[in-house]
């Protein structure tokens, strides 16, 4: 009953928990946005409360809203607060929220460093786990640098649960902080042989991932991995290792040879499809990297192809798809092995899954030969007719064209057939690829001279039947082919049988409905045709017909002169004037044909697309140099040249270019490249000629037009490509027969070739093209420059991890060990915070010395004794910050921090992290402090006031652990120092010595402050109340940006910013005993004035002194 009451009040306390929120959102479907905005307002209220449970609940709700797409970045600080909770329940929620909401730009991340470090070294493995998981999501370069050493230590944690997480997260650390790779690598390598399979698998994962990006640095690990591969039974691990070998073999061919056997064994034996697939892929990769043509490997290829065939024949769509995918890899190097499975691939074209059909299409691209091209294309044409949906049909269309045009029309033996295919493809209404077909028509007609007569005839027919193409739709992509048709008919008009008729077709009024650029071509080519017609008639001395033609033009052209399209209008009026002039000459019986033809004389040669780029820059020509000196800047306004068309808006125009030097140009170029590389929408040129087709994103938005193909748009009189196929087959048969006859006659039979028509593959050389085809190659400039194919992405984060791992580790490469934000203290000789008298004044190892030297902090003093003392600030679990000091000793490093206890104003907790830096075992540690009147170490009951506390753990070499000691304090207004000692036994193999370390704990006043957010209204009330005493402080010569200054105060002295206006800010903090501390910080000209108010003047004085000290050190 009592529980119920308590529970009820808790429920009321949380106005709305996550479930309520979710339910509420579901119930407010129609006004979701409004509902959520009220929820966010509530959450904001909840976050203002001190109760951490309420805050955690609010943060949990925010995480949910973040998923729905709401911006919650404003709550980042609250998330950090919840992360810092000492209760696992809330910590877990805090870290979850952080991992979902934080990214590299989140500024509060820098506040989390010490909190995370603390959680990482928490005795509770789930605290550590939750911190590692969170860190894996939001690790930044700074965090990686600062925490690398801690995480590396965790790789040797006693619990495998932590070890495996630590190992995995190291990969993220390497990416963000590549310098950590070399120092951490030896330990990572050790983990490959960890007794726990999970840790081992994690290490394999990380190393494989690293090796895939930069394989050459990991070749030396090959034997180790080979051993693992042959011994491991874990498929997850095996897959990783096999993948790794796939990356290594291109660098070390001998490895490949060695791999084939175990891999084929696995292929035979495994039942796991994922492993089988990985093996097949790797065998393929290995065989590709090995020099091809090794006879003993054809068996392996055969095996792979067989297995893939099984996959493709499987009813599981996924296996089918992957089978086809892998098949296409084999195809690149061993096309013959794949070609024998053509039947299967063609079958896949009928699959109901479009993605499988597309894969099959990709394969067909590589499978064509001179022999089977026509057959395959015929099959594809059938699919074009059957295809549902424009996307797939367009894909088929481009594929057909790709297949036919690949490697410079290598497989086309009959170009008449190809032209017919292109013409047939024009039946595809609504396709987006009219342009593609058109460019193919142009390309073939220009480059294959022998085909021009045929092409021109076909194009003339297309023009004549243009109404069938343009049909019912204005914006029909297919009408692009008319562009090609008109140009071909005009340019090669000498091949036209009836130029008059074509001319007439090109001047029909309907043409005016075509897109402007096509009309322009029509008009221009009508003129070319006109020239041809004139010549023909004058040759036949038929002046009557010639004049009729002129008349036709004079009548029809005015329609185009009226065109809204400038290009059409301009060309039409030019030509109209020309024709009118010709007409006049004709009436005087002057022969004009010769001169008119001269207008269009000369052959147009195809130019390679890259020709322009490849023209070498002549010696002595500097393209970046100014041709004329740029106008000097001093030019006065009125000297500027007057704008021709409109007044230039001089006010907004950029300042005129001044001389741009080489460096600047290079920089700009680099910036542009960077921008392009970062821009996912910038299409980078790909060096491969084989295009990858995939559904373009957003294709779905294009309305799918249902095309009624029940009435096929057969253009009358057109030769069907099928006829060619038949003819071609007959021709080949005949040729073959003849050849055979010849061969028989010569009695010289070639071996290895079957005599029957369709037994065994026919060699390509047997098929001779039907026409003598002269494919004109595209022109390239003389001394073309070799192309530069350096297409490596400079932004690849993995590039930074290209690090030689076999080189011995230099001392300078050690990981930074909590060196950030450290401040020097007084040298220990003069009342240092920690004084220690080492029992054995051993020489410091050179390692340690160097490590200190390496430290980036310039102002850090290296102590002359066997230890150094530093103080760094730290954040504690409640989101406030406290001091950490540390002791460096040859055997032991200790870091401590003092944390105020919010619940109990008379207690502080000192957490000490001990780390064993020696090679010996440390045990029987005892911690003791000489109590003062004000501060006492809390000892267990029954213990005397001078007894030490036993540290509840032992430290094996290299291990660290944390111990906590509670102190009770009475007054917190003064800083104090407590002396103490730590005794411990150093146990090495042959001896054990007792050691003692003296130290001092420094309780500053700052360490009693707890960062507490305060809202401006509450702050104002507090100041108005008049209970506060004031004091002030001036700092001279502070040379740092204001926000750094504020961050420093927040960070080192546990304040929070209440409000900031320009160079003025109000700040707040509270002591563990509830004292309010308010600061007003102003800055001007390197002088900072701080006006402070507090209800306890001596506390305030001490805090201000400490602030002063902080800034005097910087």
């Amino acid at each position, binding site marked *: 009953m009592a529980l119920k009451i308590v529970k009820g009040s808790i429920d009321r306390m949380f106005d709305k928990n*996550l*479930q309520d929120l*979710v339910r509420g959102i579901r119930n407010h479907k129609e006004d979701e946005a409004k509902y959520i905005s009220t929820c966010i307002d509530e959450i904001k209220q909840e976050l203002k409360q001190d109760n951490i449970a309420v805050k955690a609940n609010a943060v*949990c709700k925010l995480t949910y809203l973040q*998923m*729905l*797409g709401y*911006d919650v*970045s404003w709550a980042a600080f609250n998330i950090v607060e919840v992360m810092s909770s000492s209760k*696992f329940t809330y910590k*877990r*929620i805090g870290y*979850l929220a952080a*991992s*979902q909401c934080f*990214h*590299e*730009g989140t500024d509060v991340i820098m506040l989390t460093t010490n909190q995370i470090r603390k959680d990482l070294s928490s005795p509770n493995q*789930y605290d550590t*786990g*939750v911190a*590692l*998981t969170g860190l*894996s*999501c*939001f690790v930044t370069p700074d965090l990686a640098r600062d925490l690398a050493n801690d995480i590396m230590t965790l790789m040797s944690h006693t619990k495998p*649960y932590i070890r*495996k*997480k630590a190992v*995995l*997260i190291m*990969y993220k650390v390497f990416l963000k902080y590549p310098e950590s790779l070399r120092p951490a690598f030896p330990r990572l390598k050790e983990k490959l042989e960890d007794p726990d399979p*999970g840790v081992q698998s*994690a290490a394999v*994962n990380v190393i494989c*991932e690293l090796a*895939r990006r930069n394989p050459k640095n990991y070749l030396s690990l090959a034997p180790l991995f080979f051993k693992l591969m042959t011994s491991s039974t874990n498929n*997850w691990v095996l*897959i990783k290792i096999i*993948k790794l070998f*796939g990356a290594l073999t291109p660098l070390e061919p001998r490895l490949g040879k060695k791999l084939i056997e175990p891999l084929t064994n696995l292929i035979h034996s495994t039942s796991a*499809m*994922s492993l089988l*697939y*990985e093996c097949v892929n790797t065998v393929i990769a290995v065989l590709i990297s090995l020099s091809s043509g090794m006879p003993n490997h054809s068996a392996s290829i055969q095996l792979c192809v067989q297995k893939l065939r099984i996959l493709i024949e499987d009813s599981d*769509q*996924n296996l*089918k*798809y*992957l089978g086809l995918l892998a098949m296409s890899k084999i195809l690149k190097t061993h096309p013959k092995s794949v070609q024998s499975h053509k039947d299967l691939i063609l079958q896949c074209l009928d699959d*109901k*899954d*479009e*993605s*499988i059909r597309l894969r099959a299409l990709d394969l067909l691209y590589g499978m064509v030969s001179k022999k089977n091209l026509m057959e395959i294309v015929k099959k594809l044409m059938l699919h074009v007719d059957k295809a549902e949906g424009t996307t797939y049909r367009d894909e088929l269309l481009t594929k057909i064209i790709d297949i036919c045009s690949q490697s410079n029309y290598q497989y086309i033996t009959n170009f008449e057939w190809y032209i017919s295919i292109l013409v047939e493809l024009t039946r595809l209404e609504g396709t987006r690829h009219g342009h593609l077909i058109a460019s193919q028509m142009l390309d073939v007609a220009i480059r294959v001279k022998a085909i021009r007569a045929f092409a021109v005839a076909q194009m003339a027919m297309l023009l004549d039947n243009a109404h069938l193409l343009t049909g019912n739709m204005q914006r029909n992509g297919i009408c692009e082919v008319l562009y090609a048709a008109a140009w071909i008919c005009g340019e090669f008009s000498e091949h036209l049988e009836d130029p008059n008729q074509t001319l007439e077709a090109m001047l029909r009024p309907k043409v005016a409905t075509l897109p402007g650029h096509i009309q322009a071509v029509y008009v221009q080519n009508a003129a070319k045709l006109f020239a041809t017609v004139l010549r023909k008639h004058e040759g036949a001395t038929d002046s009557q017909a010639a004049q009729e033609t002129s008349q036709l033009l004079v009548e029809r052209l005015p329609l185009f002169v009226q065109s809204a399209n400038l290009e059409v209008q301009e060309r039409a009026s030019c030509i109209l004037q020309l024709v009118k002039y010709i007409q006049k000459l004709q009436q005087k019986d002057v022969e004009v044909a010769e001169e008119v033809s001269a207008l269009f004389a000369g052959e147009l040669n195809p130019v390679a697309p890259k020709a322009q780029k490849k023209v070498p820059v002549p010696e002595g020509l500097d393209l970046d140099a100014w041709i004329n000196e740029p106008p000097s800047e001093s030019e006065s306004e009125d000297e500027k040249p007057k704008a021709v068309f409109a007044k230039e808006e001089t006010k907004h125009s950029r300042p005129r270019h001044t001389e741009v030097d080489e460096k600047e140009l290079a920089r700009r170029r680099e910036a542009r490249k960077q921008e392009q590389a970062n821009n996912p929408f910038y299409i980078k040129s790909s060096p491969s000629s084989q295009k*990858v087709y*995939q*559904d373009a*994103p957003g294709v*779905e938005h294009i309305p799918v037009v249902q095309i009624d193909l029940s009435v096929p748009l057969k253009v009358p009189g057109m030769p069907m490509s099928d006829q060619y196929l038949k003819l071609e087959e007959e021709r080949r048969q005949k040729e073959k027969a003849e050849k055979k006859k010849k061969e028989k006659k010569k009695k010289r039979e070639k071996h290895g070739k079957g005599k029957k028509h369709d037994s065994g593959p026919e060699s390509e050389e047997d098929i001779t093209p039907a026409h003598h085809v002269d494919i004109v190659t595209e022109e390239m400039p003389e001394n073309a420059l070799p192309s530069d194919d350096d297409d490596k992405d400079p932004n690849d984060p993995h590039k930074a991890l290209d690090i030689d791992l076999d080189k011995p580790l230099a001392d300078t490469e050690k990981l930074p060990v909590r060196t950030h934000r450290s401040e020097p203290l007084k040298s220990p000789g003069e009342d240092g915070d920690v004084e220690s008298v080492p029992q054995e004044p051993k020489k410091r190892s050179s390692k340690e010395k160097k490590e200190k030297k390496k430290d980036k902090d310039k102002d850090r003093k290296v102590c002359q004794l066997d230890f150094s003392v530093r103080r760094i600030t730290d954040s504690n679990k409640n989101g406030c910050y406290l001091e950490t000091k540390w002791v460096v000793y040859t055997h032991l490093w200790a870091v401590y921090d003092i944390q105020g206890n919010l619940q109990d104003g008379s207690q502080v907790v000192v957490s000490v992290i001990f780390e064993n830096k020696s090679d010996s075992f440390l045990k029987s540690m005892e911690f003791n402090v000489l109590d003062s009147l004000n501060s006492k170490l809390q000892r267990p009951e029954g213990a005397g006031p001078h007894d030490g506390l036993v540290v509840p753990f032992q430290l094996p070499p290299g291990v660290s652990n944390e111990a906590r000691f509670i102190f009770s304090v009475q007054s917190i207004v003064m800083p104090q120092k407590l002396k103490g000692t730590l005794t411990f036994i150093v146990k090495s193999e042959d001896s054990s010595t007792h050691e003692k370390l003296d130290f001092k704990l420094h309780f500053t006043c700052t360490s009693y402050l707890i960062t507490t957010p305060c809202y401006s209204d509450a702050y104002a009330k507090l100041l108005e109340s008049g209970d506060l005493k004031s004091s002030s402080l001036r700092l001279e010569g502070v040379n740092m940006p204001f926000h750094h200054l504020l961050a420093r105060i927040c960070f080192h002295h546990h304040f929070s910013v209440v409000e900031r206006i320009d160079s003025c800010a109000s700040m707040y903090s509270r002591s563990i005993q509830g004292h309010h501390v308010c600061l007003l910080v102003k800055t001007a000209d390197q002088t900072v004035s701080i006006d402070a108010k507090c209800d306890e003047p001596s506390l305030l004085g001490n805090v201000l002194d400490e602030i002063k000290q902080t800034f005097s050190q910087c």
Partner: protein
Amino acid sequence: MLMQFMLLFSRQGKLRLQKWYVPLSDKEKKKITRELVQTVLARKPKMCSFLEWRDLKIVYKRYASLYFCCAIEDQDNELITLEIIHRYVELLDKYFGSVCELDIIFNFEKAYFILDEFLLGGEAQETSKKNVLKAIEQADLLQEVN
């Protein structure tokens, strides 16, 4: 098989869970999510579970009303990714006891905790289902004690 991200969304296209293993801006994440949800939902039921998208491979699978969708890199193994999805579903199933979409909606933080015990930084960290569940149970226990 470094996973780039994992998305769970419903047949109506509502996002139920998202986990990003690569750092991206919120804007970019939203854009990717929108695009992928649309692409995957547009696919017909009989189609295979893989698709190429940008320079990534998408592996997705539908369980009841929920789509589980992962992005992997070019050389990664699609089948093992499907296996990962399946494992995760099994884990959810074991944890919630025949899981349904509502379990994930109302206990979305639990769904994340389970995922985090199973995958870390995009890599499978624990292949034993028993171990994952044990870790979750113990962490939950700790939560109650608190």
